């Protein structure tokens, strides 16, 4: 008896064909010889005198898992019982082999996953380290920032003491001017001027440091900004009779309520007016006007007929430490901080600082500030 592939194929085809249904094939000597070409085992069997074989092919889906050859040196006939037995064993073997294989794959998969896991854990550590480093850097930067502000305010304080001495004595010399020769009076005036410049520089640098570190304080109270402007102009006039001649106030409002810091706004107007005086000649006027705009804001204009500002300079005018390369402008002392600070203050007050200028003709700086509205307070109450 024998089994065939059932679909008309020869034994050899069946043996090497992975898609055969039939797992069990019985072969005689002739069959063996016939498939020797295709099957190494078959040729070996034939050569060693095998006359019959029972071959069980184990497949897992389409994979050839194993083949079991039961061989005899005599032409054999296998009983149904024997075939059943072999078939049974084959099934078990197949299961065992397939399981082993799967477990092998499982093990590999497991190892792979463990590996991935370890990688992820390492990446996580890496991220945490970076996070930690960033946090430390941030803390260090904040500390550095604070100590820069601290340092600046200590330095400013230390410098102001000897400055006070210089300015005070220069003042005294001015009081005693009658007892001094004209040269001595000039020397004293020079000393005072330089000392005052230094004082302004120190204050500006302190302000700059505070702005950069976020410690810049401004009060917030409603007040009459026209009064602030008046104080500034009066103060300047009193300090120098020539300035009194040069400062012209036109189109003045009597009052305009804004919300903010009168001291800081005073800083702004002082800066703009002293700039106008500085960058124009001693005999040229500086005009200050205050008007109410269409949008109910106040516009304060400071106009000079002095050097004027070039187009390229205008772009960088309000940046810190900016000084024009124009030799006429460079000649006059300045820190390059005033306009930057003024703009910052004005903007903090919800306003704007702009300029229009022409080289050789003059400049007009305009501050616009919104009105104080008690509306906002009413809403809160």
């Amino acid at each position: 008896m024998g089994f065939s592939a059932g679909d008309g194929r020869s034994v050899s085809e069946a043996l090497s064909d992975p898609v055969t249904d039939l797992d069990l094939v019985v072969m005689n000597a002739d069959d063996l010889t016939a498939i020797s070409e295709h099957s190494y085992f078959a040729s070996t069997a034939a050569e060693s005198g095998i006359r019959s074989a029972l071959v069980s092919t184990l497949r897992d889906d389409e994979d050839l898992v194993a083949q079991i050859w039961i061989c005899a040196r005599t032409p054999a006939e296998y009983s149904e019982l024997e075939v059943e037995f072999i078939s049974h064993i084959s099934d078990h073997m197949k299961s065992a082999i397939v399981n082993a294989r799967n477990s092998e794959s499982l093990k590999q998969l497991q190892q792979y996953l463990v590996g991935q896991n370890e990688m992820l854990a390492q990446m996580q550590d890496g991220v945490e380290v970076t996070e930690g480093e960033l946090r430390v850097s941030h803390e260090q930067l904040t500390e550095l920032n604070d100590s820069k502000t601290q340092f600046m305010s200590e330095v400013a304080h230390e410098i102001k003491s000897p400055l006070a001495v210089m300015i005070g004595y220069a003042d005294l010399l001015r009081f005693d001017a009658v007892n001094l020769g004209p040269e001595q009076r000039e020397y004293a005036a020079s000393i005072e001027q330089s000392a005052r410049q230094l004082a302004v520089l120190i204050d500006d640098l302190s302000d700059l440091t505070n702005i950069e570190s976020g410690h810049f304080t401004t009060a917030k109270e409603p007040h009459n900004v026209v009064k602030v402007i008046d104080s500034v102009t009066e103060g300047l006039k009193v300090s120098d009779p020539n300035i009194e001649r040069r400062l012209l106030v036109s189109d003045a409002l009597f009052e305009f309520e804004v919300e903010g810091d009168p001291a800081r706004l005073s800083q702004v107007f002082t800066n703009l007016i002293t700039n106008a005086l500085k960058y124009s000649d001693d005999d040229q006027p500086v005009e200050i006007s205050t008007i109410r705009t269409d949008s109910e804001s106040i516009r304060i204009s400071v106009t000079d007929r002095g050097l004027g500002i070039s187009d390229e300079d205008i772009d960088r005018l309000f940046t810190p430490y900016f000084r024009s390369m124009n030799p006429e402008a460079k000649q006059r002392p300045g820190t390059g901080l005033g306009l930057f600070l003024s703009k910052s203050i004005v903007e903090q007050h919800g306003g704007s600082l702009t300029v229009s200028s022409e080289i050789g003709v003059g400049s007009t700086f305009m501050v616009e500030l919104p009105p104080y509205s008690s509306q906002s307070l009413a809403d809160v109450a």
Partner: protein
Amino acid sequence: MRILVVDDVADIQVLLVAVLQRAGFEVIEAADGTTVESWVRDSRPDLIILDLMMPGMDGWDTLELLKSNPESIDIPVIISSALSEDEDFDKAREMGAVDYVPKPWSADDLIARVNKAVEASQQAA
């Protein structure tokens, strides 16, 4: 009119004396906060000009002492200091100082403020 000036920096003391004397005031000097009490008791000044940053007993402590002592509480105190933050102005006012002249001040300004404070205290008296 007698003014007590308190500042640890000798140069500033000399300057203050010169400026105030020139304006017609009599001046007594204290170099730190600890001697202020005895000066007040012995010399009875009409006004005190007080620096803030002094070693040992600083201006704040001195001001507090002055304002808690019935003998000195009514003497007007003007702070003269290089500290010039808004919080310093506020603190000085809260503690009872009548004015604050930030250094560097001009002599004119200082004298103007001294006169103002003296006038105010005389009116109150």
